[in-house]
């Protein structure tokens, strides 16, 4: 990955130099080899900090809202899956296409440090991505792991290495060393549970929420100026009330608001400090949209009409969609 990192620095410097971009959105080295941060670069000096390897899962698309708002031209490095987010933001009129210079950046799958630790690695000094394997240098020696075993969950259902929007591409395209898992397999597993088990599962998940709003902040589909849960007078502003039931709606409504917008990037589930499987809420809506209203992939492009804003006269009736299914009988 050294090489691509160098290419990116050179490219970024050139774009700043020739005025294509006023700033560059990329990743910056973190304190540890596995916790890189997102950053905005303005100068060559700053660019020395630019880094890119298998610990850059964050999608930079959402930062474009601020750069667009400020009227700044931003060059942004986008992994294939990140490009969906940019298209979605364009579709939601949250960013200006003329202020975005999108650079398709190859990705071979991002790694989950928790999985690496779980594999027994302690005192990690360096991690090297060798395609199918990952070599972890620890204080006590080196460990070689199958990359497929330590990929982030979201990479297991990788949507492929095509850039859905890119003004230029850098490096050579890579593939994630894992046959893409069925994106909705886990949603289906929950659907197959009994209602009691489903209720218990979600009770267990959602009850851990501390309302830190990280899921909201990171989501490229959730980009309101003011969240309905935050501004007074919306009728849903929850935080001011002591009544805990006000918060009950938060995750369902948030999922509802991003239904037809959620690109399936899985960042909500990844960043949740409580590890709540929010991606499985959004995934359910995505799956239902495909099932009931026809295949639709948010962020595939910036033009196709979204399912929540279109209809077909022959759409299924709400009462019929979950009928004739014994498993779903709540009261059996």
């Amino acid at each position: 990955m050294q090489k691509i990192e160098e290419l990116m620095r050179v490219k970024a410097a050139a774009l700043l130099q020739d005025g294509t971009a006023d700033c560059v959105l990329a990743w910056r080295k973190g304190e540890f080899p596995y916790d890189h941060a997102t950053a905005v670069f303005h100068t060559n000096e700053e660019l020395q900090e630019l880094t890119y390897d298998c610990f850059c899962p964050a999608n930079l698309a959402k930062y474009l809202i601020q750069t667009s708002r400020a009227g700044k031209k931003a060059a942004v490095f986008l992994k294939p899956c990140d490009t969906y987010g940019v298209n979605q933001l364009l579709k939601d009129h949250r960013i200006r296409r003329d202020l975005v210079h999108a650079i398709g950046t190859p990705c071979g799958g991002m790694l989950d440090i928790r999985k690496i630790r779980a594999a027994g690695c302690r005192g990690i000094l360096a991690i090297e991505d060798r395609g199918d394997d990952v070599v972890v240098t620890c204080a006590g020696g080196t460990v070689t792991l199958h990359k497929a075993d330590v990929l982030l969950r979201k990479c297991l259902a990788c949507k492929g290495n095509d850039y859905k929007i890119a003004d230029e591409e850098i490096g050579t395209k890579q593939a994630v060393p894992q046959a893409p898992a069925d994106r909705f397999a886990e949603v289906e597993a929950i659907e197959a549970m009994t209602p009691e088990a489903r209720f218990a599962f979600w009770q267990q998940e959602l009850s851990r929420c501390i309302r830190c709003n990280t899921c909201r902040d990171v989501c490229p589909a959730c980009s309101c100026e003011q969240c309905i849960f935050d501004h007074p007078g919306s009728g849903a502003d929850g935080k001011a009330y002591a009544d805990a039931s006000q918060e009950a709606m938060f995750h369902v409504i948030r999922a509802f608001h991003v239904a037809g917008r959620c690109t399936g990037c899985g960042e909500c589930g990844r960043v949740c400090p409580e590890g709540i499987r929010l991606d499985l809420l959004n995934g359910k809506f995505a799956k239902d949209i495909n099932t009931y209203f026809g295949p639709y992939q948010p962020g595939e492009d910036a033009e196709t009409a979204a399912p929540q804003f279109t209809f077909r006269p022959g759409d299924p009736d709400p009462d019929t969609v979950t009928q004739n299914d014994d498993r779903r009988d709540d009261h059996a």
Partner: protein
Amino acid sequence: MQKIGVFVCWCGSNIAATVDVARVVAAAKGIPGVAFAADYKYMCSEQGQQLIADSVRQYGLNRIVVCSCSPRMHEKTFRACAERCGVNPYQVEIANIREQCAWILKDKEQATRKAIALMKAAVAKVQLDTPLQPGESTVVKRALVIGGGIAGIETALDIADAGYKVDIVEKEPSIGGKMAQLDKTFPTLDCSACILTPKMVDAAQHPNIRIFTYSEVEEVRGFVGQFEVDIRKKARSVKADICSGCGICTTKCPSRKADSEFDAGLRKRGAIYIPFAQAIPKVPVIDRAHCLKFQTGKCGVCSLVCPNKAIDYTQQDEIVTEQYGAIVLATGFDLLDLKHFGDLGWGRSKDIITSLQLERLTNAGGPTEGHLVCPSTGRQPKKVVIVSCVGSRDTSGRGKTYCSKICCMYNAKHAMYIREKYPDTDVTVFYIDVRTPGKGFDEFQRRAVEEYGVHYIRGLVGKVDVHKDGTLHLTASDLNSGRQLEMEPDLIVLAAAVTASPDARKIAGLVTASIDNDGFYVEAHPKLRPVESPTAGIFLSGMCQGPKDIPETVSQAGAAAVKAIGLLSKDKLLTNPCTARCNEAVCSGCQSCVKVCPYGAIEAVEKTVITLEGKKEQRSVAVVNEALCQGCGACTVACPSGAMDLKGFSNQEIMAEVDALCW
């Protein structure tokens, strides 16, 4: 400070017999913010409204809740009352304790508890109601009448005589509708054409009336006062402006395969045809599906024989776009397709016909020049059977459950007419009931029996067999005597049920008029607003609202015209102030609202907004055009941030109602 007055109406005993109004008043008095509560026998009466006005003055009320009948009935009344005494009409809420409590419940305790709950919800909402001011919109001084039958013609003439422009859109090549097909009309037995044709001519010559025949309404935009309508003028293939109406083309046309619609299929017509002699306009039309020139490319006879060179095979449909202040629906009726009545022999013999076909057979302008004959033989029938209620009052599912209303009278007319002209022909009418209310109607039917010797048999026709030699065998039961009857009539006339025009549903969709399960337009109120659709600016004329005879149709047509004139006579209309409103500080400019707005009333506009933190910011936000917004609220749900809200039905107001009802 909020001072709410709660007024509980007894509606005589309608409410008070089932709801303990005193308890509702007592419950209201206990709610914070309620400064006054009282009950009264008829709150909508002058005294009732005076009670409201006096209380507003005495207690300084600034919000009003009326617990009464449906807001669809008297919301307007109470809003006007509020306005007169200085309370904003949109700070009035109605708790519907008549239709939703008293009339659906028998138990007084239950009804009272529900009434209190509905009152509380109304109080919860009224507390959040903000004063609203209606805007103004202009009125285009022109009406559109859809349908050129007697209903449409009468409405158009009345509107035109009042001095307003009217356009009639008729899908057939001529105006006239069903009435033009009729022979005589009951109860006077005067000739239908003789009374209709002058009206048709009046309409055609009226300086305020334009007639679009062979045309259909394609698209309707806008709203009351400002409808914009696309009319498709289908290609006639004849240049109307130079055609003299001589009709040579129609006689020379070699194609004779098409059934004449006007003669109800009893005669063939050419591919180029004028529907009937008195047609308006008297301009032929080419039925391209049957025209040899269009189908094979070979022919062109009509073009050769036309002295004025009026035939134009290249003519295209034309779209005319016009503005209207009011739209009158006069789409008329049709007869039930009798395909499910094979047991009555339908489709198995030419001598089993509908009443409308009989009209053509007895009409001097019809295929037999008025000689009643059996279509199969051409001989005068000696025995005629008329069957009532074919598909009317039918709960079997193959017909309609309602009474078609006109059949009993036209059956008597047909029977009498046949007996008069052919005294040697025996006429029997099978009926379930004879229903002949109306001026001179019952006398008319009795004359058929008493003076003309028509046999009326209360009973059902069980089945009709068609023998190989074409003779008919009918089995029926006489319900009065309990006997089975067997008859061999020469001609059977089926009084097929009246149905709504199949186009009614399409047009209802275009103008967003309500329609019932049978396809008839629904009136705004069955008694008090019978010629208005619930959709503002849409009026109903004639059979499209339900079965009617000609006198009723004409009266309703006049009533619809008066309502339309009332609208057209206004220079300005007050618009519904319950429109969408965008909180620009919160709006992200995502344009979700724009995508779902059916009226194109929302636009994204780049502008300076003040953020919630009080900062100035330049960005794109949604802006609602209140003149276009109809207040449906679709945008409010599409909006993820809650920036878009609906005045009069805000998120907070609805949730306050929810909270009050779920408490």
